[in-house]
């Protein structure tokens, strides 16, 4: 107790150092979160026990799956297409992803400026953000199918649908990075007589450029994955269509392996390039 007497009174935590100190206080929300997590954990376990397994022998199923994976990835081969053909088809898929991302980005910059609360009015911003949230809530594939009603199933519907969804995604990303800019900067340029577009190009965009590029790259990666799926689902061509043919038409699992390798290689290349590019931007920008 003697040692404690030197401690300033009014600091209860220091008076009894042996008592454990809580760093988290139980509030209503933390309790609610914990109950939810427990309930989810319970449901997950229960679900596994309540599945109807019927005749499936677990051991056999796992072995069969491994055999399939082995055939897919270790015995990959070309049968119905050549290497150059596959390469060309990957380029088509990349092209689809690139085109829709660029179209989306250009439209999204302008809509994003309108949707940024600090640049226009709260009302305009709320309207655009609302519309864009609705578009985003519907999956890309569905938009492609919706546009296919007018344009027919194929690459045109894919380009329109994917662009549509890219715009909605990028408007949100861009407008949020525009809103990050300190209002004082805009005020300072206004006070010197600068016009709206001068402020946009001299302050708003330079300040958000790295964010914008990061988001655009992310969307490009998403669009590449979607473009593969579109090849199969909407007949947009590209490597996705070949994959569809290999799996549903020729039933050739080894060829699917080859195509998967192609897609994987592109995805890794994109990732590496994006990381390098971003690093460079951060140094120079």
């Amino acid at each position, binding site marked *: 107790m003697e040692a404690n007497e030197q401690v300033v009174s009014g600091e209860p935590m220091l008076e009894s150092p042996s008592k454990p100190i809580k760093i988290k206080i139980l509030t209503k929300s933390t309790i609610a979160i914990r109950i939810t997590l427990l309930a989810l954990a319970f449901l997950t376990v229960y679900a596994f026990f309540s599945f109807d397994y019927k005749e499936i022998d677990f051991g056999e199923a796992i072995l069969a799956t491994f055999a399939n994976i082995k055939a897919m990835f270790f015995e990959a081969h070309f049968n119905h297409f050549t290497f150059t053909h596959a390469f060309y088809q990957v380029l088509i898929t990349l092209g689809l992803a690139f085109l829709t991302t660029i179209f989306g980005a250009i439209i999204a910059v302008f809509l994003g400026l309108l949707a940024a609360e600090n640049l226009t009015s709260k009302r305009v911003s709320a309207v655009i953000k609302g519309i864009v949230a609705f578009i985003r809530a519907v999956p890309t594939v569905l938009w492609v199918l919706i546009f296919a009603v007018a344009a027919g199933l194929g690459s045109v519907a894919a380009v329109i649908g994917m662009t549509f969804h890219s715009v909605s995604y990028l408007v949100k990303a861009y407008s949020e990075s525009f809103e990050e800019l300190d209002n*004082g900067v805009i005020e300072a340029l*206004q006070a*010197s007589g600068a016009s709206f577009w*001068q402020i946009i*190009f001299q302050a708003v965009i330079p300040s958000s450029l790295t964010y914008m590029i990061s988001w655009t790259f992310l969307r490009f990666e998403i669009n590449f994955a979607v473009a593969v799926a579109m090849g199969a689902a909407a007949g947009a061509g590209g490597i996705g269509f070949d994959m569809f043919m290999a799996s549903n038409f020729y039933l050739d699992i080894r060829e699917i392996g080859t195509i998967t390798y192609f897609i994987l290689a592109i995805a890794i290349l994109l990732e590496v390039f994006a990381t390098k590019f971003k690093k460079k931007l951060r140094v120079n920008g």
Partner: protein
Amino acid sequence: MTPLLEVNHVSKQFGNETKALSDVNFSVSEGEFVSIIGPSGAGKSTLLRCINRMIDASNGEIIFDNMNVMNLKKKELKMVRTKIGMIFQHYNLVNRLSVIENTLHGNLGKKSTIAGALGLYNQEEKEQAVKILSTLGLVEHIYKRADQLSGGQKQRVGIARALIQNPRMMLCDEPIASLDPNSAKVIMDHLRNISTTMGITVLVNLHQVDVALKYSDRVIGINHGQVVFNGTPKDITKDDIQRIYGSEAEDLIFDIGGIHAS
């Protein structure tokens, strides 16, 4: 001498409740260095912002260079704004751009929209920027990004951006509130110098009474949106300070004794 700026019966109401300014009157002549002091919430920032119409005053008239600022159309207002430089407590630079780019931003108001948006500046403008930056002691930093500078250096870039406008008047909203005493002195010396050697009128909001008294030709004291003192630093008395700052003024009175004695 005819006044460069006249503020007549200016009031500003925010919403229904807050009366930020009520019946403010004063005038400032060409080349004068005027400090505005007053407690927090007195309406100092509101007053400065009404002058270049960053905020629209509710009532009264503001005459700058023989023009009624409150009646101006968009184009004319822009023209008036190019003649008024403004610097801020938080500098308000574009962090990702270089010192010289930030300085050149002061020219945007005079350029065509396209040339300004694309950042196309001519040789003359660039030379002018370098010249101003070197008088402010920033010439070795011109290619540094603004966010790599110290607070005092950022504020000097803020001054450079205002000076390149070739302004008749500078409005400074608490330019030294975020700075250490040394940097603050450097900034105040530059502002004083701008007023004395270039003949630019300087209107500056300050929280430090001693600084206001030391640097100003004239001090305007504001309390609750009203001008309660308007005179030279020599004329200011303990009573005036008490009237400007209300009852919390005890410590400040001490400062004044020191200043007048020295």
